[in-house]
């Protein structure tokens, strides 16, 4: 399982880094969240939410913020 989560962390951080010119963390998080909503599978999103719940330090701030926004959008 760790291998898979390692990959997810790497992927989401990479999405955040490659969109860093979108603006501040919040603006980047919007782009990241949009991307994940559109392209990630249910299972990958679920794993991301778990990482967010665990407050994983390995997620970049914009990546974590994106995860939080997606999670709360799903809960609500």
């Amino acid at each position, binding site marked *: *399982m760790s*291998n*898979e989560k390692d*990959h997810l962390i790497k*992927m989401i951080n*990479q*999405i955040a*880094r*490659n*969109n*860093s*010119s*979108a603006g501040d963390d919040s603006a980047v998080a919007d782009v990241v969240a949009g*991307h994940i*909503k*559109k*392209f*990630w*599978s*249910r*299972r*990958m*999103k679920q794993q991301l939410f778990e990482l967010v719940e665990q407050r994983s330090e390995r997620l970049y701030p914009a990546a974590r913020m994106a995860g939080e926004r997606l999670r709360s959008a799903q809960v609500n």
Partner: protein
Amino acid sequence: MLQHFDPNKDYGTPASLSEKQVTLEIDGIEITVPEGTSVMRAAALADINIPKLCATDNLDAFGSCRLCAVQIEGRRGLPASCTTPAEQGMKVWTQNDKLAKLRRNIMELYISDHPLDCLTCPANGNCELQDMAGAVGLREVRYGFDGENHLDAPKDTSNPYFTFDASKCIVCSRCVRACSDVQGTFALTIDGRGFDSRVVAGQDENFLDSECVSCGACVQACPTATLMENAVIEMGQPEHSVVTTCAYCGVGCSFKAEMKGDKLVRMVPYKGGDANHGHACVKGRFAFGYATHKDRIRAPMIRDTIDQPWKEVSWEEAIGFAARRLKEIQAKYGRESIGGITSSRCTNEETYLVQKLIRAAFGNNNTDTCARVCHSPTGYGLKQTLGESAGTQTFDSVMKADCVLVIGANPTDAHPVFGSLLRRRLREGAQLIVADPRHIDLLDTPHLGDAMHLPLRPGSNVALVNALAHVVVTEGLEDRDFIAARCDDGAYAKWRAFIADARHAPEAVASITGVAAEQIRAAARAYAKAPNAAIYYGLGVTEHSQGSTTVMGIANLALATGNIGREGVGVNPLRGQNNVQGSCDMGSFPHELPGYQHVADPVARGRFEAAWGVTLDDEPGLRIPNMFDAAIAGQFKAMYVQGEDIAQSDPNTQHVEQALRSLECLIVQDIFLNETAKFAHVLLPGSTFLEKNGTFTNAERRINRVRKVMPPVAGKEDWEVTVALANALGYPMAYRHPSEIMDEIASLTPSFAGVSYEKLEQHGSLQWPCNAEHPEGTPIMHVDSFPIGKAQFALTEFVPTDERASRRFPLLLTTGRILSQYNVGAQTRRTANQAWHDEDVLEIHPHDAEERGINDGDWLGISSRAGQTVLRARISERMQPGVVYTTFHHPGSGANVITTDNSDWATNCPEYKVTAVQVEKVTQPSQWQQNFQANHQRQQKFLRDAQPESR
């Protein structure tokens, strides 16, 4: 009086593109043709066939044989009709006594130095010399046959596919002109003068040792049996032909498959094909022998575990076994525990059915395609910026380009027929800019004008493309009118501020790209100032951790300079496999239904649900690398793989193998026991493109028909297998012919709404979008507007890959392709193309080799963070020092054992093009290679055991 244009007829000289018409009279018949048309062609268009030998309509007239002489009112002598342009009011006679005598004399001379073995000649029945002797009424040869002649000239049989029998040569130079004008290789010349003149390959070498790339254009052009396909020499002349489409690269050449019964004699490029206009390359023309190779899988096979021998079973049993396993696995592990992979080598209809099977019968969106590992960033990047996941032009459009920027592509090897067209345009004077770590052959185009090579470091594409755009913006080279009219203001303003920043200046990125700032500036100016500038790019752009960013950067560059929406410009992805475009269009990706309609879009999904009679998942499914991860994690248990070899083609082989070993049911449908099939539980025989009906879509969005010329070896076309599996799973599919599948595609996919087999028959091919708005298809995209209204500039920050050279891994490995082999090589390795490339080698710069004491031909151990392999060394100056290069056409080479699982941030397209490695001399194969060989032997034995009566 003009006859309908017939692509099977030779009109003698090429068509004129002039819009001005002239009217002349030939043998009393009035004919109107475009200005610049030859008298010969004008006559042929009216079905008046003037004898000819040195003229053929894919070559400019040469005027050497004089057989085509005509009489023209008011002109002296008897001018050659092939070199005489038709003029307004001209009066021409093609037959009279004087002409007849002249022609007979000419033929007499030819025949006196020609073997008279017509009855046993391979060209018998299909020889222009013979036809002309008949046409001019030759009855005697007064010179006798005893004079000086060439009848003992030796044969050159070095090329595995054709023979050069010089004794039959009439020195018409059609072959020489085909090699230079059509192919652009200039391998042939006429040596000597008068009677001594003869055709010579290279520096008077045999064909195989010369620069000849075996495209076959000379063979096709030869009017005699001098250059002749070995297959025709062995089998005799074909008796019928069927027009179909090449199954190799994304050019999608049309061919006439010339047959004797159900045996394929030869493939002749079809003049009516709009992608290739009668030209081809060594793969499509000659490398079809794999279709009848003894290694073909001829019956379905099953086994419980991958450590067991295969068991040959009936189709019913194999399909039943597969369906039962899939159902059991879903019952045990859940709906999302299975998935499948569609093939970019299969037809649109087959691909469509596989994704339909997954979405409707498996009940999830775990569908992906090998485009994931090649052009998925193209789909993403072009959709974001231009609004459509496809190239913008026709191939022919390049003939109007004044400046051509080639980034990360090697067209003369990977897209040879387009490479030849491009070379023709370069000979006409278009400017060439190549951005590539390697010195590609295009840069050595004979008679090339100015060319620039930007030899950037692997992994720095984004920095380079940004720097080009920076120069455009800061030097005021933008096309302001285009931007104002066609692009989104807000996105443009943001992008302009972003790209104008000094961090993108060529000087600032020189240390990243390794390219001198002045060179980048010069390239940017040339691109921006050309009246028409076009960008062509390949996997050297997409297969990077920033592949999608580069694609968007390319689109930015084209938009900023107004190079979109007309002929001669555009953004042109050169697609790898024959149907990459089609497999993407057909909904192979986990987030998109056919026609790039997102699964979360309720309206689109609703239409599919209504048509398919199921509820569809509204969340994207797993991509290939995610499937592998989930398999290793024990959550993903079964896969249906049609016509793909993920074990060889995907990066980080050991990771892929671990994933495949974790599956409880792997169903592989392929024509051979490929690397993936070694991990399979069900092996379903696939059919080649010769054995089925369907369509392929090439890199110009052109939908071409694939037509069946022989029965499938195991009795089923690939689409029929998917239908059987769906039915066994309890999801009914009832198509009788692929045309019915296309009708369904058209009804659900707006850009295909106007496509049908009937219409394809009428038009030959159609470029999508083809619908009510564009009933005849769309050759050039985005002419008046973009599918998203205004184009969107994208911000393209350069984020270097994590893969960096280090003390331990000081070299950067990049990978590519060569002309004679195709992709994983499963097809071409089983043909005589092996004569050109029978092993993958590691190209290394002399400087790096010397440092390590490496000589040409040494065995080299190559290690990366992912693994090790061993290849032979080839010392080469094509790359900069510090960069090494290999191909991945042979499975035992293990090139992908060393590639890492880094991937594009947006699409997970693997980063094949950058791997940090170390290289050292070794004496034995790597551990992986030894294991590979052992497993290969074992799996081959399992296969043999299943087929007791050896075939």
